[in-house]
């Protein structure tokens, strides 16, 4: 199965620097692709990619209680409803109401305002080694 996923491609039709942004999804929808949604959580495209990868690519057993370690050690495949969004932590308290996926990478990108974003770093862990908790923007 891993061979199958190594061929999985995450494809973007994107607009680098379009301001105001264009809604590419509706442009693509009319072309007739089979579609899937990611639940009711509003998220940015990079988080959507992270969630998609968690759902379709990551393989193995997982334990929804310790999903973070599951993701790193067992490399679990995670059903959509079990994606661990973090709504509030000390680090994200000032961004109340925004969603984060926990435990994916070291880098958090926090949006403040509609177009401006702030980049923060937290603990020194990585996607590829076992480590402690980290956050990704909503």
């Amino acid at each position, binding site marked *: 199965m891993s061979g199958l996923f190594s061929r999985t491609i995450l*494809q973007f*039709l*994107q607009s680098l620097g379009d301001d105001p942004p264009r809604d590419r999804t509706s442009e693509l929808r009319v072309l007739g692709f089979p*579609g*899937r949604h990611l639940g009711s959580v509003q998220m940015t*495209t990079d988080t959507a990619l992270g969630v998609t990868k968690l*759902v379709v690519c990551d393989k193995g057993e997982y334990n929804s209680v310790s999903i973070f370690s599951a993701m790193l050690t067992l490399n679990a495949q995670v059903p*959509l409803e079990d994606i661990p969004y973090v709504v509030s932590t000390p680090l994200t308290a000032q961004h109340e109401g925004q969603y984060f996926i926990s435990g994916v990478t070291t880098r958090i990108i926090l949006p403040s305002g509609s177009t401006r974003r702030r980049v923060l770093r937290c603990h020194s862990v990585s*996607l*590829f080694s076992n480590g402690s908790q980290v956050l990704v923007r909503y």
Partner: protein
Amino acid sequence: MGISRIQSKLSSSLQLWRQIVIQLNLISRKHMRLLAGKENVVRFSHLSVTSAAALQASWQGSDTDHLENELSTKSVEVTTLSVMELMKERNIPLEKVCLLDPKAMTALGPEDGDGKFQWFLFGVR
């Protein structure tokens, strides 16, 4: 103060704003590549020539982050082709491409990773 001076001031601040937007987008694109992991390919399509060059250069920039260095440049591709042109070029049929769409009827599930789709398509706003 002539009109041309106002114009040039306006155009330079617009240019600065555009630069900021592009920089922020680059951060977000890098983040995408990171999230995809090294076993997947992230392909940015339908870029303008300028954007493609900027994005390409950003992968090859002096990156001291060991995390990003773990990802080979093979894991990312940048193209000016549209997704339809790319699918045609790579012989990927429409039904093998899953559009992530908030308005879709079906939720994404683990079974969608079991060979049903070859590509996952995101329309970036």
